[in-house]
């Protein structure tokens, strides 16, 4: 079980710990329960979407339309929440359905027409945002009702609802990728797409599912988005996709597909969140923040790559030939 020490997640976790320690040495305000809670709360939307993006990246795909999807779903959630007959379940359903539909739209083009994911989603990024702005004419959705916005700050048994929602998302996603045929097919497809179709995996279906799931999680995120901010800008989520993708790749998912874990992604989200928060807490001059952030990202990924290289050198010694020579038990 020394194995997990060599895992990428562990390296990134160490990185997170080092960064956090560094920050808390400089500013005591960092390591307080309330600050840590606010880091978590402020990054839950990111984390939820990053869960979906992890699956997308595992299939060696990418979805740059998630920022537009978020804005799209959030506006519709908001508009529905303003209706007099609306309630929390209707809002949930609208967010989910809206997200899933957008995701399916991507999925059909990617799986059905075999257009590369980055191209499809660059296209739909514009299509979603354009049609949203055209529909709303740039108007914000404001004055969302309290029964909806209060959801963000309420707790059940002392646990804030967004955290509960996130926990559910993680649990469902974990169950999905660990204990279902569909979830393992996602990894299989990412590992070797040709082999995947040869073992009977309907690769189109799997891709469609992955993008729909991404959409569903974006839908859930959009519900929290509206509840968190109480007003929704039709430009909401613009260029958010880059943050989501960053979190996922920092968390260790390979852009080549086949690898990526929920834990890694969570760590990726936290690294981004801690840096963002720590930078202000450390009172770094605003102009320097991008420099610091960029440098830390570069160092983090480089260290990881160098570390991986060492692992590569160690790997070759594994050999089952001896075991096989045991012969055949007839």
């Amino acid at each position: 079980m020394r194995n997990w020490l060599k895992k990428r997640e562990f390296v990134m976790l160490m990185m997170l710990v080092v960064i956090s320690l560094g920050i808390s040495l400089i500013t005591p305000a960092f390591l307080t329960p309330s600050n840590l809670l606010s880091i978590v709360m402020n990054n839950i939307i990111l984390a939820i979407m990053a869960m979906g993006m992890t699956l997308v990246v595992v299939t060696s795909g990418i979805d740059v339309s998630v920022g537009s999807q978020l804005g799209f779903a959030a506006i519709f959630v908001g508009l529905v929440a303003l209706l007099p007959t609306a309630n929390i379940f209707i809002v949930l359903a609208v967010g989910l359905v809206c997200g899933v539909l957008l995701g399916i739209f991507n999925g059909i083009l990617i799986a059905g027409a075999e257009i590369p994911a980055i191209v499809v989603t660059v296209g739909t990024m514009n299509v979603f945002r354009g049609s949203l702005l055209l529909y709303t004419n740039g108007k914000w959705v404001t004055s969302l009702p309290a029964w909806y916005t209060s959801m963000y700050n309420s707790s059940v048994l002392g646990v804030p609802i967004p955290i509960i929602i996130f926990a559910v998302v993680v649990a469902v996603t974990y169950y999905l990728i660990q204990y279902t045929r569909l979830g393992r097919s996602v990894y299989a497809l990412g590992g070797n797409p040709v082999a995947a179709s040869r073992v009977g995996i309907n690769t189109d279906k799997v891709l469609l599912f992955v993008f729909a799931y991404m959409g569903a999680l974006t839908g859930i995120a959009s519900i929290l988005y509206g509840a968190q901010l109480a007003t929704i800008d039709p430009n909401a989520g613009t260029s958010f996709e880059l943050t989501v993708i960053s979190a996922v790749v920092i968390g260790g998912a390979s852009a080549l597909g086949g690898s990526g874990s929920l834990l890694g992604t969570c760590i990726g989200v936290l690294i981004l969140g801690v840096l963002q928060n720590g930078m202000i807490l450390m009172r770094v001059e605003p102009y320097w923040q991008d420099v610091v952030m960029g440098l830390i990202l570069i160092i983090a990924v480089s260290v990881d790559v160098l570390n991986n290289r060492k692992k590569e050198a160690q790997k070759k010694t594994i050999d089952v030939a001896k075991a096989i020579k045991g012969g055949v038990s007839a």
Partner: protein
Amino acid sequence: MIKVKRSHELILLIFFLALMTIMSILAPSFLTVNNLLSVTQQMSELGILALGVTVIIITSGIDLSVGSIAGLTTIVIATMYGMTHNLAVAVIAGLVAGILCGAFNGVLIAKIGVPPILATLGTMTFFRGIALVISKGNAISDFPESYYFIGQGYIFDTLPVQTVIFVILALITAFLLSKTPWGRRVYSVGNNPVAAVFSGVKLDKVLLYVYIFGGLMAAISGWIISSRVSTARADLGAVYLMQSIAATVLGGTNIAGGSGTIIGTVIGVSVFAVLGNGLNLMGVSPFAQNLLMGVALILVLLINNMSIIKNKIVLFIKLNFK
């Protein structure tokens, strides 16, 4: 495969001509020499950026930092000019900055082996950060009149200077890619890096030059942008990032590497430029413009993949209704 590629460019060209026809019918002022020249002027910056991006994508890489490099270049030029009051020195410093940024990317990717998307995700923030630190976020506008030639001037009173630069750079890039050993190696690296190494290609050297080339193109693009808008600012060029990738891919460059042409990219950029210009002339809402650009991108690739889609449908029917 070559056949498929050719037909992609053909489809795109037909699409482009159809677009031109529609625009000329719907917008009377579209098909005037003046307007067409200003279309080429508008597409030059994106186009030059896309030249670098094309070469990078052919190696199966990606560069998310090109927009930041363009922005940083503008700041370096402005700051150097403020210090030396020598335009040539300033511009050279700007281009050198672009080359250094490209080299920085190249070292991360080729020498250390960081995946391009990760490396440039980091440098995108880093380069922008440097530009912000130098400029304190401010726009810098004290340039001499002569600086504006490159982005606002005309040759023979009609040809926009940046159009000419774009055409020359496109020709050079096309030449480099198709006629030089370097170009051949670029394709080979994108196609199968292991086999390239096994054939004596110095992978790290090729990649290093590729990212330097991308950095230089971004810098030239930034130089033109800042001359056209008479301003240097850290975030100039940022909007072109996604567009340059989209135009490159629309032009038929395979995102997985190994294939792609400059002519394809030029047509890809033209489609976006004509669409934007024509819709502006027609007074169509800019929101609809975004929508239509997305639709155009998807449409062209749908047409391109028609046979795949047809096969799938035919097989589906065969299996389920027979």
